[in-house]
């Protein structure tokens, strides 16, 4: 079991649409830290305006126990242990079995098994056409994935590193994001673009890019970042099932995380965040690898007497302002810890969104710790200094909570 308490998204069963200025938000506080996992059903059909929600409804309770929606603790079911990349593979494999229109394309995904082994053995199982080895032509194979998605195939495009997808930025921004809009709704692009990004172990500047910021303004796409094997599998499945184009950010250093996940099939909601550790004093918003730095710092903070509430925002676009708002209303202090660039990064957008919507609830300005605005250096100590370290998080919390 991971050392992280895995509560599920506190975006619990609200029936009203989460209008941000309303006082009718229901505050659900997970008072105290309870061991065991809460399964809270979150209604994915938030917006009652469109008639479509029932059709496209995601199963968002974490454990689908044959239609039983009541809370079920996974401690009664043993689950199985695996690494994050295996969880991704499991999710992908299950979706490919379930739906014959799901196909994967990317460099070295087929015979080689994927550069991070996410697609290992899938080519043997599903054939070369469904797990397609492409030449090194990111722009065009992303374009091909989008073209295939226009006809209804659910393509999963793997970028060997998110940085390489910069070459495909035109296709992602202009075609993937915009075609649904410019065609007046005629085309759906149910594509998933996934790949590892972030700062690794001395991989050099071009292979350690934090690109979430570049994609976040593209209208029409959704972005999610996974951080644990549990949410990796759930988000992968949700992304494949989603009718919107989704960019799934993984992190190079997280592929070997081990965790026990449920045996049953589960799909997570793409727009929800995850309550990692409920608390009272300060809300720490984070995602991807920084979650672990935060939890590391949390241990120190707890020893010093602070009670941080840690939320893994998971959904980078759109932000789950419902959960975040509830948390802010409780703690009144926000710290954002992220690996994205300081300028124009996810944290910057989140800070703006929080200030806009929850200004009245803040006792102190939002503090955002991001990685430095530099290309990632090769030298070890310098690379460490590029990203946020737990000591800095502790200092920031102490300052914030004065």
């Amino acid at each position, binding site marked *: 079991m991971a050392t992280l308490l895995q509560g599920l998204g506190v975006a619990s069963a609200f029936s009203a*649409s989460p209008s941000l200025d309303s006082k009718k938000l229901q505050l659900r506080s997970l008072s105290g830290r309870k061991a065991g996992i809460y399964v809270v059903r979150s209604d994915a059909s938030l*917006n009652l305006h469109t008639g479509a929600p029932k059709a*496209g409804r995601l199963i968002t309770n974490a454990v689908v126990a044959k239609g039983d929606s009541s809370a079920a603790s996974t401690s009664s079911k043993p689950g199985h242990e695996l690494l994050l990349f295996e969880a991704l593979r499991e999710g992908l494999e299950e979706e490919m079995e379930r739906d014959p229109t799901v196909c994967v394309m990317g460099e070295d995904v087929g015979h080689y098994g994927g550069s991070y082994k996410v697609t290992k053995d899938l080519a043997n199982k599903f054939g070369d056409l469904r797990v397609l080895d492409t030449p090194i032509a990111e722009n*065009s194979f992303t374009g091909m994935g*989008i*073209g295939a998605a226009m006809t209804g195939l659910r393509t999963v495009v793997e970028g060997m590193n998110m940085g390489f997808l910069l070459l495909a930025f*035109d296709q992602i921004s202009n075609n993937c994001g915009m075609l649904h809009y410019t065609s007046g709704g*005629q*085309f759906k692009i149910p594509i998933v673009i996934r790949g590892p990004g972030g700062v690794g172990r001395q991989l050099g500047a071009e292979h350690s890019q934090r690109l979430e910021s570049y994609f976040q303004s593209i209208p029409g796409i959704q972005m999610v970042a996974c951080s644990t094997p549990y949410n990796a599998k759930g988000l992968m499945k949700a992304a494949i099932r989603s009718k919107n184009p989704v960019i799934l950010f993984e992190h190079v250093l997280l592929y070997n995380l081990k965790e026990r996940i449920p045996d049953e099939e589960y799909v997570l909601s793409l727009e929800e965040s995850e309550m990692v550790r409920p608390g009272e004093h300060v809300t720490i918003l984070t995602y991807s690898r920084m979650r672990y730095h935060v939890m590391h710092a949390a241990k120190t903070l707890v020893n010093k007497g602070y009670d941080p509430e840690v939320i893994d925002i998971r959904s980078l676009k759109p932000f789950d302002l419902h959960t975040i708002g509830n948390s802010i209303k409780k703690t009144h202090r926000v710290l954002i810890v992220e690996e994205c660039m300081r300028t124009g990064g996810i944290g910057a957008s989140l800070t703006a969104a929080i200030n806009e919507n929850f200004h009245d609830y803040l006792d102190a300005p939002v503090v955002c710790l991001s990685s430095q605005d530099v290309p990632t250096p090769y030298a070890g100590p310098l690379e460490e200094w590029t990203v946020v370290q737990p000591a800095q998080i502790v200092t920031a919390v102490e300052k914030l909570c004065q």
Partner: protein
Amino acid sequence: MAVSRLASSSSSSGSSLVKPISAALSFTSSLRRSLSSSADDSTTLTIETSLPFTSHNCDPPSRAVETSPKELMSFFREMALMRRMEIAADSLYKAKLIRGFCHLYDGQEAVAVGMEAAITKKDCIITAYRDHCTFLGRGGTLLEVFAELMGRQAGCSKGKGGSMHFYKKENGFYGGHGIVGAQIPLGCGLAFAQKYSKDETVTFASYGDGAANQGQLFEALNMAALWDLPAILVCENNHYGMGTAEWRAAKSPAYYKRGDYVPGLKVDGMDVLAVKQACKFAKEYALKNGPLILEMDTYRYHGHSMSDPGSTYRTRDEISGVRQERDPVERVRKLLTSHDIASEKELKDIEKEIRKAVDEAIAQAKESPMPEPSELFTNVYVKGYGVESFGADRKEVRARLP
């Protein structure tokens, strides 16, 4: 009138091969009779194309094209309609009812019409921004065209796409793309999906001589050839990439040869029968052997777009020369009159009808309302997430996404 006299249209020395009139050959038939303009469809005419096909790495199809009077009449009607539509769009643009970019296709109608004649609506066509006539050929209506150009609700993309974003999914028309060359990988993606679902259809991905220098073309071609995708890449070579003549932009303007290992065919794009023959050949070829490049040697009378006069980089003599000698509509007109399928008067009547239809469509389109403000936020996502979005003043436009 008895219709069987059409057999006598091979009044030229018994041979059924009639050289089409490329220059002004006045073909007076002593057997001229007045016929109703709805010519019958039972007879087949075999007409030779004006120029032979030049091929690269394959055997060219025969010059003798089989057609019927009905088909020729439909060619005339469609091309005259497209011509009229584009000229009307010209006047609308100058009247400032159409804004932004408006790329007109007059002069190139034979490519759109000939292609349609060779394929079904299950085959896919994808092209760049010069898409009004291709859209019409794929079953779009005049109202949809004009309404979309004027940004009204009755447009094919609900007014949100504009001139460069015409789509008709149910008839296999995938647009309509503004970025030069970006539609080629999309087209290969469509072909990939066709191969995936094994439905024996092909994709025609059109691009211009300017786009022929894009890297993504070669990337996509490589992949299409690697996996034997049923993609036919059609280079509509109108000899000018916006303002740059092809010899100034391309070291090798033999675009049909640029595929290297992919066979190519050079076609006289102003001869609708040649286009039809080439596309038929291409479809059969692509279903068996993989991609093919068709280079359509064509010409546009207007400038690159409405903001380009079109005369700074070419002489007016050149334009009028082509119009006199190679105009596609005139060519069919002469074919029709020389084969006694229709008289001059009938053709003029058809043109009058077309003019009326176009005027009516414009009037109807002008009455169509502008999109509602709430339409700003629809179709951004397929499945929305209920977030509220509003305009700058937070009052006027408030909508839930989507």
